[in-house]
């Protein structure tokens, strides 16, 4: 777990996370069990401080209840449970909350990412701090099934010897990486298109089409 992720998670617990932060964090929670544990710990502390009863709640329920504060109402049709969100909050907070809710789904929402290309830009080299063991990986489009080619640039910044660690990325890793980085923006673009009027029923149909899991 990275420090940034830990900070994002803390911000989420403290309800100070940005909407994108919320999405990304929840995406990460889904894929990393240790992050889930950390989240549970944060929740337990937060819940205890607030006097909440946390027993018997699933992670999803907990995420929902933490982000949501939804008041429920009855459904008008049989076999349907209805939750109602009053239109009282402005975009950043309420929208951020509901976007947070979609995060886990969004991580798998972009059903078929066709032709994924991942390229490491030159300036990546400058963002590695001098104390870090430099691990620089060049990605290519996963032409092979199992592995993406990797190149490691060993760093020796502090005069001592650093042992670079090779990381082999599977196609799924790359897809997950791309999905985590881009999925939420794809959803948001569909929303934007809809909000500004769009051009047809297509934005909505696109969204429905994106609800498939990643293959």
């Amino acid at each position, binding site marked *: 777990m990275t420090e940034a992720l830990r900070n994002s998670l803390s911000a989420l617990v403290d309800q100070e996370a940005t909407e994108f932060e919320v999405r990304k964090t929840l995406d990460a929670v889904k894929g990393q069990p240790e992050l889930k544990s950390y989240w549970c710990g944060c929740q337990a502390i937060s819940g205890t401080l607030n006097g909440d009863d946390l027993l018997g709640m699933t992670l999803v329920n907990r995420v929902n209840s933490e982000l949501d504060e939804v008041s429920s109402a009855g459904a008008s049709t049989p076999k349907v449970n209805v939750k109602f969100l009053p239109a009282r909050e402005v975009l950043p907070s309420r929208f951020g909350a509901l976007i947070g809710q979609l995060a886990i789904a969004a991580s798998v929402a972009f059903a078929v990412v066709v032709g994924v290309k991942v390229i490491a830009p030159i300036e990546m080299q400058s963002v590695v701090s001098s104390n870090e063991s430099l691990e620089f990986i060049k990605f290519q489009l996963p032409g092979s099934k199992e592995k993406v080619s990797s190149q490691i640039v060993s760093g020796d910044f502090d005069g001592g010897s650093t042992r670079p660690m090779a990381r082999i990325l599977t196609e799924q890793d790359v897809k997950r990486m791309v999905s985590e980085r881009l999925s939420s923006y794809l959803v948001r673009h569909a929303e934007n298109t809809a909000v500004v009027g769009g051009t047809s029923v297509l934005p909505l149909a696109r*969204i429905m089409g994106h609800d498939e899991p990643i293959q």
Partner: protein
Amino acid sequence: MPLRYFCGFIGLWIILSTPALAISSEPAVSRLQAMASAVKSLAYSGKLVYQREGVLSNLAFQHDFKNGEERARLRRLSGQPLERARVGDSLFEAMPGPDVLRQGYPLPGLIHPGLTQMRESPYRFSLGAKERVADRSAQVVNVEALDDHRYSYKFWVDYETDLLLKSQTVSIEGKILEQFEFSELVLGSKSIQVALDQVSLQVNVHPITAQETVLQFSPASWLPTGYQLVSALPSKAAGQKIYSLVYSDGLGSFSIFLELTSSRAEPEMLAISGPTIALGKDYSFSGGALRVTLVGEIPQTTGKTIIDALDVNGLKGLLGRAR
């Protein structure tokens, strides 16, 4: 004689230097205008198929009015029974199962092309043949892109009602990138039937919040002809701002998302799905990165050119001050 050549040269120069604008066939544009009005004002329902590379969805659609409120519902008929609806200013989303995560997508305004803007963009509008869709007679309207920075479209418009029965988004190479088509269309109010044996759905309702336009800058140093900034959607939380800029030429659109993050810059990424591209590019910035993401229905090379031509230094300064 030289004067004639000179005049000819001047005339040619004027023609060549004039930006490519829409070549409109008035009947075609009128048909699109009527279509835009019909899809919002009529009550109708039906079943349609949406398809793009790797995705095929069967959907039921319903549009009507109740108590003066516009209502639209879309329900997926195969696979997981998802449903989205809009009633007035509320959004509904229904998904099965107890652990339901809400998604809260606003429903689009359906066909609502910016006709003026569309006519100023390099498209050629023309009427095509009369064809049969959903057991109805339809007029084909071709919208052909006149440059390589946008896709072409083909619309099948119902003769009787002007409703859109079928639509295709076509690449520069002539490949169909996505399409939808009504297989059944019923005029008048009619609710989508829900099968009795279906699993329970949890329905969530989301308010549609009004957007405020406070962003007064566009970082795009280069835009394809006809594209304009149509919406700027800033959001902020915990002191961090994310700017969403939406550009459109009346038919196609793309969004640019800008944010300053405290995390390390990530590699450049590209995802393509049907007509939609998503490009992510991070720039190192003091204590983090300027994260730029472009998503839209434009060709990949166009998206790359736009994102590469952004005024990054200006953005860093602007966003850094607003931090």
